[in-house]
């Protein structure tokens, strides 16, 4: 499963960006392979619909779960409708913290994916 983290910069030491739509880039992580890439957020400096466009971009690239400090109201409705999981971090984290937790509970996450797949 592909997940995305809103990142304030192109480094694992960057902070998770609190504003989903305005983050510098997204760290896209594959929970099966453990691969990660930094994808620029081309909408971070555009107008009102930035967050929604970024959300659409992630959805069409197959992301099923997104981590950020907060999500705007329209993005929340959009993700709810499309079945994307949102994870709201209530404390500041750097990207590396999150990646480490991914690695740590990759086993558990894989079990969940199996269960999801069986259900579908």
């Amino acid at each position, binding site marked *: 499963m592909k997940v995305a983290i809103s990142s304030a910069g192109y480094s694992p030491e960057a902070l998770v960006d609190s504003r989903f739509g305005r983050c510098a880039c997204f760290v896209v992580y594959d929970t099966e392979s453990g691969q990660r890439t930094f994808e620029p957020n081309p909408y971070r400096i555009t107008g*009102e619909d930035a967050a929604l466009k970024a959300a659409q971009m992630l959805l069409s690239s197959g992301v099923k*779960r997104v*981590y950020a400090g*907060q*999500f*705007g*109201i*329209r993005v*929340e*409705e959009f*993700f*709810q409708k499309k*079945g*994307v*999981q*949102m*994870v*709201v*971090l*209530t*404390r500041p984290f750097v990207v590396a913290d*999150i990646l480490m*937790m991914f690695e*740590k*509970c990759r086993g*558990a*996450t894989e079990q*969940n994916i199996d*269960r*999801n797949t069986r*259900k579908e």
Partner: protein
Amino acid sequence: MTCVPAVSGFKPYGKNLSDEEREVVFLLCEEYESIRLCDYERLTQEAAAVEMEVSRPTLTRIYRSAREKVAKAFVEGRQLVIEGGKVYYASGWFVCKECGSLFNDPSGHNGGDGCPLCGSRSVEKTEDGTKREKQNEER
């Protein structure tokens, strides 16, 4: 959403409290907007929902919260601070007791898959099913 409040907040007078002593009431951008549309522009809630590009039930939730906050500030003599756009989660939100993250669960497992951040199984539904209360507590 057009959210450009004329001021960024209000302070009560006639009460000699320092800023530190006063618990501030935070009015979110959407809440401000809902009062502006419903009470100032006198739109119906249906029209306000269209204007804000949210569903009608969401608008109702925002508006109710907005009025509660304004009432609290009035009655208790608290500062009111208007904030940038925040979040109003419809329902089905969970909180992780280990790391404090909030998350929805589109899998329909009711949070049973555990925390999507730390993997903890110690998760519970947020009090009112939304993220709102929690977020306000933490300010």
